[in-house]
């Protein structure tokens, strides 16, 4: 146990020590310059945020609906319920590179080319790596996170509240939408935060669906490519022409990414413990 803690500390200390020197306001607000040896990583931050927002907008409705169906409507022993559960659990275990290939094969090649044929007369607009496709691929990847967190939130809402609502004559749908879901919002929020944290860090799914190393402009349309923090770390670490010159930028980017992940996880924990405390007083 202590060994694990020690390793974690070593990683954090090393990154902070080497990365904090470059962490100025300029770094966070300017783009890279001089071949990635100077400047900042603003485009990567913007790209990451844009993709994550799109991903959450796509994943939340589907994830919450699945969790609500599984918890409020479905019979626990029915075959369909079991199939959905198996699918959710296994979706969480699919390798991230397989998601990337799925995104390439389904979203970019199939859906993108289809859209191009129908709306753009064959011109290559959506049939290539794009922000939209990367976001949708990540949405599928983080779907299990949202589902599990939402189910946990729904289970925490006490049964008395549902019975009271039914006693007042509400239909199941009304109960779910007006009574249960509002109480489950903190848990759903936790799920969203954890999904965002996962989405900001995963690189393999976006390798072929939208991420780029250097773009002259910020992404401003759904079919644009985008820079991303994790992808930036990967390319800087493995394909940089001058390793020593780009190392400070690399460390600082890792620091920003780790800081973002840590902040998101910490806020998810805070939201979860506050929710437990509040609901604990109701039960």
């Amino acid at each position, binding site marked *: 146990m202590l060994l694990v803690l020690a390793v974690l500390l070593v990683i954090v200390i090393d990154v902070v020590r080497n990365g904090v020197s470059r962490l100025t306001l300029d770094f966070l607000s300017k783009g890279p310059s001089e071949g990635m040896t100077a400047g900042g990583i603003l485009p990567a931050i913007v790209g990451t945020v844009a993709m994550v927002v799109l991903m959450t907008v796509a994943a939340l409705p589907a994830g919450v609906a699945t969790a609500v169906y599984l918890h409020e409507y479905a019979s626990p022993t029915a075959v369909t319920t079991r199939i959905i559960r198996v699918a959710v659990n296994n979706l969480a275990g699919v390798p*991230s590179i397989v998601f990337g290939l799925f995104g390439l094969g389904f979203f970019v090649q199939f859906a993108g080319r289809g859209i191009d044929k129908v709306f753009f007369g064959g011109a290559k607009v959506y049939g290539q790596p794009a922000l939209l496709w990367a976001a949708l691929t990540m949405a599928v990847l983080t*779907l299990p996170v949202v589902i599990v967190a939402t189910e946990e939130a729904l289970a925490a809402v006490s049964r008395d509240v549902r019975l009271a609502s039914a006693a007042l004559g509400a239909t199941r749908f009304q109960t779910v939408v007006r009574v249960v879901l509002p109480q489950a919002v903190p848990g759903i929020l936790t799920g969203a935060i954890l999904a965002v944290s996962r989405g900001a860090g995963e690189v393999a799914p976006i390798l072929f669906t939208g991420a780029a190393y250097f773009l002259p402009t910020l992404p401003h349309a759904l079919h644009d490519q985008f820079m991303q923090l994790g992808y930036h770390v990967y390319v800087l670490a493995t394909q940089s022409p001058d390793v020593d010159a780009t190392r400070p930028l690399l460390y600082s980017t890792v620091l920003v990414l780790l800081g973002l992940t840590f902040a998101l996880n910490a806020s998810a924990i805070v939201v979860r413990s506050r929710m437990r405390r509040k609901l604990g007083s109701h039960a």
Partner: protein
Amino acid sequence: MQTLAFTAVAAMILILIFIAKEAWPLIASPVIHKEVTLARMWFAQQWPGYDGPEHIWQPVSEVPKYAVWPLIVGTVKVTVVAMLVAVPLAVGSAIFISQYAGPRLREIAKPTIEFLAGIPSVVLGFFALIVMASWLQSLFGFDSRLNALVAGVALSFAVIPVVFTVCEEALGAVPRSYLEASVALGAARWQTITKVIAPAAAPGIAAGIALGLGRAFGETMIVLMASGNAAIISANPADSVRTISATIAAELAEVVFGGAHYTVLFALAVLLFLVTFGINFLGDFAIVRMKRRMGVLP
């Protein structure tokens, strides 16, 4: 709402369909068969300029060679190293936290493990590549700075949280009556844990290990950055390796769309999907059975 609920099922089915669709020409297309067939990938082939039949993965060359065994050996080597490091640490920590630790230590340990689980794999790969590889090389004097050992150790940091979470849950689900009966019979703490609680939690611990194994098999970024990316067959953990996932990630960017290399990479993805699906399915099945036995599930 019912239709939205099937998104996860639809996703699994679509994933399999669409990667199999891109890999299908490997079985069906005579054009591809001139360069490579599914059967030839599994057996040593005689290439011009070599003494005897060899398993070689060298898709980018004048004579493209597609042997799948070097990649499988690489994946297995890295996974074995990762599991050998991760399982003792994770199971040991789970036993310590659930049986010995006081509530305050538990409050520190849970968020720590969650934070470790939240570290992006690209950061772990970065750490392995930049820091750990040099450190391990100065310690052991490897020939190759990036090898299966470095990648395996880095991979274990990603596997530990998975195994720990499931094992801790399994150990916590053992009924308290077991513990009380054992103590009543006069057993020491250590005897109770090894002879009563751990065996009772064994299915859950096995399931946790299975899920960790699935995670190790499919992990991409860490091995892509830290394993040296050399597709060779060797038993030495200090040699560079190439795993299936790293191969796909590294080579897909440069392939001709629809060509033999492209098709083979998608076929590798199908293999990866089926293997990890099988491992995870068995692991989940065991967890569900354990929960049902413990009375948590209907």
